[in-house]
């Protein structure tokens, strides 16, 4: 009787050890690719990351050296342009779904937003190509920013809606009971309470579109020189990496590695910022 109990105990211990080992190995398998990618980028790219890389234009074909300054700045400009269009529309749309509208229509719109989220990004590139590039008869920063914004909007909309719905109704009632108007309640109480979640959604959307290549290909097109005009083609980091990586020149390959390293590091930093923002739950519910 007693020995059976001990046996059972031993067997249970073995099972427990097996389960936790399996979980541990699975966790390693998940993290491993990230580690490998970053390690590989570091080894191949770090030698080409230097001052020139951040400050110089691409060197003419055949010459060694040069940098990706225009692509880095171009990417930032495209992200800024996409944010100007995408953040207000996405955030306000999400707030509308959460706070206004009828339940039935909202569920249809919500479903459509989810469908939009699932559309391959190259489709957005083609759409904007048809709508903007063909009409203006030119690739442009405007078209690139618009394509990225269109990818951003449903992402931000859905996360905003979710975090706004998480704000307990008691806060809305408390504000309305003080004689505060509906829109002030939504902006200064509800959105403020959900602000961390909303900002997190925006940052994650930025991290997502920061690496998009396909929609840029059809819209911003890329540029080997500086451009700050909305109506001219502009370089972008992911696109520059693509162009350099498929080129036949060793020096360009090295620069493509460096560009990828910078891009991944940037996205990594945004994600760390998100972790940092969502960590302190002290003063906010969301």
């Amino acid at each position: 009787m007693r020995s059976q109990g001990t046996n059972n105990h031993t067997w249970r211990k073995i099972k427990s050890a097996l389960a936790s080992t399996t979980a541990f190995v699975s966790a390693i398998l998940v993290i491993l690719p990230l580690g490998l990618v970053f390690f590989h980028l570091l080894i191949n790219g770090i030698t080409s990351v230097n001052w020139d890389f951040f400050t110089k234009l691409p060197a003419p074909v055949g010459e060694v050296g040069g940098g990706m300054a225009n692509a880095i700045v171009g990417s930032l400009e495209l992200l800024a342009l996409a944010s100007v269009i995408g953040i207000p529309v996405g955030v306000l749309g999400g707030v509308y779904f959460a706070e206004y509208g009828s339940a039935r229509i909202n569920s249809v719109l919500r479903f459509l937003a989810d469908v939009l989220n699932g559309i391959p990004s190259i489709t957005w590139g083609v759409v904007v190509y048809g709508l903007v590039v063909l009409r203006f008869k030119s690739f442009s920063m405007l078209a690139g920013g618009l394509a990225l914004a269109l990818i951003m909007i449903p992402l931000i909309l859905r996360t905003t809606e979710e975090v706004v719905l998480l704000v307990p109704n008691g806060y809305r009632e408390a504000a309305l009971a003080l004689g505060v108007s509906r829109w002030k309640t939504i902006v200064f109480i509800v959105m403020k309470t959900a602000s961390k979640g909303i900002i997190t959604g925006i940052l994650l959307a930025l991290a997502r579109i920061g690496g998009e290549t396909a929609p840029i290909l059809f819209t911003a097109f890329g540029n080997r020189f500086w451009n700050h005009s909305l109506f001219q083609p502009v370089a972008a980091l992911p696109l520059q990496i693509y162009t350099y990586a498929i080129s036949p020149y060793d020096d360009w390959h090295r620069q493509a590695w460096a560009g990828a390293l910078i891009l991944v590091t940037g996205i990594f930093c945004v994600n760390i910022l998100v972790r940092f923002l969502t960590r302190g739950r002290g003063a906010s519910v969301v």
Partner: protein
Amino acid sequence: MATPEQSVTERVEGPAQPPVNSDPAPKFTFEAKNVSIWYGEKRAIEDVSLNIASNAVTAIIGPSGCGKSTFLRALNRMHELTPKTRMEGTVLLHGEDLYSSSIDPAIVRRRVGMVFQKSNPFPTMTIGENVVVGLRLNGVRSHKFLSERLEKSLRMAALWDEVKDDLHKPGTSLSGGQQQRLCIARALAVEPEVILMDEPCSALDPIATAKIEELINELKAQYTIVTVTHNMQQAGRISDYTAFFYLGKLVEFGPTTEIFTNPTQRQTEDYITGRFG
């Protein structure tokens, strides 16, 4: 014709009025006439007429789902926040129709403050900001005015001495009872004429409850207070008038001492002696 509810109306002749013997012309803050409220198809309260005396505490008691919270919320139009609500009847505040089409519900709620069952200080704001948020969002900018009102409201809510050095700390850092008094201070800061309380103590321990009850007793010198409570002893301790609701109807209304010692309705007696509910 012989149902208990109808005989109530016979007893009090139309709108139930608390008999105030000492005052020849009793002052009423609210006069509710034939109020019925529907949530969709469901009728939550039915033909309630009730006058609420000024500078007194009126308690609304009754079992869960009897419509007492709905009636309370009808007094500052908070029930309208629930979708598909319909209302009939009139509610007068100092003789003025709260439901007249020319009145903005936000103005009604500025005049008729409310404290909720679950304390709900805004989590993004400090203690100080929580108190004056109603004024700020209604456009008050003067720093001097705000800080004066801040201290006054916290003193009235009997919270000043406990938090005067921690005004910059988050409102949610306070204990449950303190949070509820903070919510009372927040409601007082906009200087309403009436304070509605929806089971303000049901989430609090006995000591915190005693403090809130003491506070209610002090506040009635300046305010008319209407409170919903599940706790019969509490209704007995704090209120001057008691209204008993059952199945959406006002069964009995009168001075608390009378309701508790000598109820005229069988249902009231059964409820307050704990036979149901």
